[in-house]
């Protein structure tokens, strides 16, 4: 991340802001979509996050912390949505057999893989915001424990234990699908 670009954006340079975040929007949306599971909510969370990044950028002291800082904003936006929604949605899953069969490590056939993935996603939907977030940051975004800890502003040891707890929660939730 170019510190000079961040400094310019901090001073109100919209072009610099655009250059700063344009390449990150897709990743932000994927993170939000994975946590929330609902496209409209994810879109709103990203829009809210981008506005917050622009608004709060002058307060960012360390340009090198931009990635963790901006991801934290996205995560907070998703958590607020999960917290505020307080309702259960019914959503249809798009079943792409060919795609699922190519990505799911299983000895069963493609149809079984899709069913497995759907079961896993239903189990994931039952997790709380904290568990969803840390699983997404680690498994989807590919962040190591130190990065996860930086995003969530928690000690690395806490990140490790939370990730373990989230994984266990997902396992328990998955048991209900069997």
């Amino acid at each position, binding site marked *: 991340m170019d510190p000079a670009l961040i400094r310019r954006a901090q001073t109100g340079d919209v072009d610099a802001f655009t250059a700063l975040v344009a390449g990150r*929007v897709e990743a932000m949306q994927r993170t939000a979509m994975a946590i929330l599971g609902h496209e409209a909510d994810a879109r709103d969370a990203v829009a809210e996050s981008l506005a917050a990044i622009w608004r709060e950028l002058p307060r960012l002291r360390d340009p090198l912390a931009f990635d963790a800082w901006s991801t934290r904003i996205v995560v907070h936006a998703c958590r607020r949505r999960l917290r505020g929604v307080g309702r259960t949605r019914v959503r249809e899953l*798009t079943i792409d057999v060919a795609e699922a069969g190519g990505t799911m490590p*299983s000895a069963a056939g493609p149809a079984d893989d899709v069913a497995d993935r759907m*079961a896993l996603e239903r189990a994931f939907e039952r997790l709380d915001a904290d568990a969803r977030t840390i699983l997404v940051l680690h498994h989807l975004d590919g962040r190591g424990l130190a990065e996860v800890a930086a995003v969530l502003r928690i000690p690395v040891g806490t990140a490790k234990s939370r990730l373990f707890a989230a994984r266990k929660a997902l396992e328990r939730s998955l048991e209900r699908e069997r």
Partner: protein
Amino acid sequence: MSEPVELTDGAIRSMLSARADRAERYRFDPLAIVAAAGPRASRYRPDASVIGRVSIAATGIAAALIVAILVGSSLLAKPGVSQAPIGSGPAVSTAGSERPTASPTPTPPAVGIDVLSAAEAGELIRSRSASRPGLLFVVKGRLVAAETVVTHCASGPCGSTLLADAGDGFVVRPVGDVGPGPWSESGPGHLSGTFVLRLSAAVDNHLRIVDFIGVLTTPPNGGPTWFVQDLIDGAAHVDGAYAAVDGWLVRDPPHPCASDPRNPAVVYGCPTNDYLTEDRYQPLQADGSAVGPFASIFLSTGSYDRWARDPAPAGPDGRGVEPRHAIYLLWLTSDGCGPYADCLMPPPRWRIVGRFDPLTDPNGPSGSPSAAVVHTVAELVADPTSFGNGDIEVDGWLVATPPLKCIGSCEADWITDVAFQPWTSDGQTGSTREPDVGIRVQDGAYAAFADRPTGDASGTPEPRYGRYVVRESAGWTCTDGGRTPSPGCLGGPTVRWEVVARLP
């Protein structure tokens, strides 16, 4: 499915990736984002991690500046005159540490907190307890045990706790409603520090009672006030800590949500989200939607309605509220449930438990409801959470079962609207029963507060009518007056009542 899915890293990654891929590409319009973002923050504010990296020399200079500011402010400030709050740490007082102004509305001067000496506190207690019950104040001093000053505790006459060098005429009693103060009479023997105390209308043995809320956690410079961002950054994050926080209290419009079958006494996020923010913030948007603040302390539902001074509706349809600025007393506690909270092992959360009001405002509202209104038991039963923290006067019959052989709670004490006997016996065996309308109070309340407590031949206490001062207290259903859940607790938090005095 023939074989259940194995939960591997690859399976999780594949599921999340497929989930993320379902969204259409976001169309990024920077100008629209900038237009919607509103006013920008002016500058960053150093956080605790910065403080840790400040050089020793710089820290020394900062400390000198703080001392100068503190000395100057204390010399210039007159008693009762509002002072600006003092920030969180050395860096706050250094050059360039002016508070950010992200709000379009300028932040009005905060009502500061005067840290009273013991003598000043004694004067305040003696002169204002009757007229300002519920008023919070901060004192730096020492609590001492005084066995010879006898008052009434749950188990009978007992010694008392005094505030050293504060004069006589009152005793200090730990509260049971918003703090670690025990349910019964046991309290700190000797304790020095900066305390939060609360005026009370209660009198015991001709001595005024002042409530000991807890030890105030203060910033490194002595504060005593924190900013919201300090707590967000993790300052004072010790379970059970109390902090005086300068901030704006607001909530968003109520939203529909499922009721929690556990029926907890403290709920987060349903049906409103309540926030304490660093700068003035209005969650209600022009289009009627609600957007939570970027950085805030998330508070339990009802915090605004209970603690905001002069709560007022906002927005074209009145669904929103006007943010209210004050210094609030926050308590980091592990109670409370919400749609996404785990009631068994909830993380500690900041919960607002009081508001600091000017000490010299005799006509202003206090941080707790006044005890001037006398209630019936039925009113307390109908809506136990609407009375706030503090003293509540209730007329009713105080009664108890005889002491029973059991594990844990060994009797049941009640206040009821009509004379009631919770214990029935044929002389050989007996059983307990609950009143149709009554509030369960702490064990020993009858013995401590009933007028001429008696028992008949079978040991059954007679109901005693009187005007009692009671307090609401959050507890756990599976502990006996405990403040924290016991292992395996499945009941969640509940409301308890504590009798603290009987009025003449």
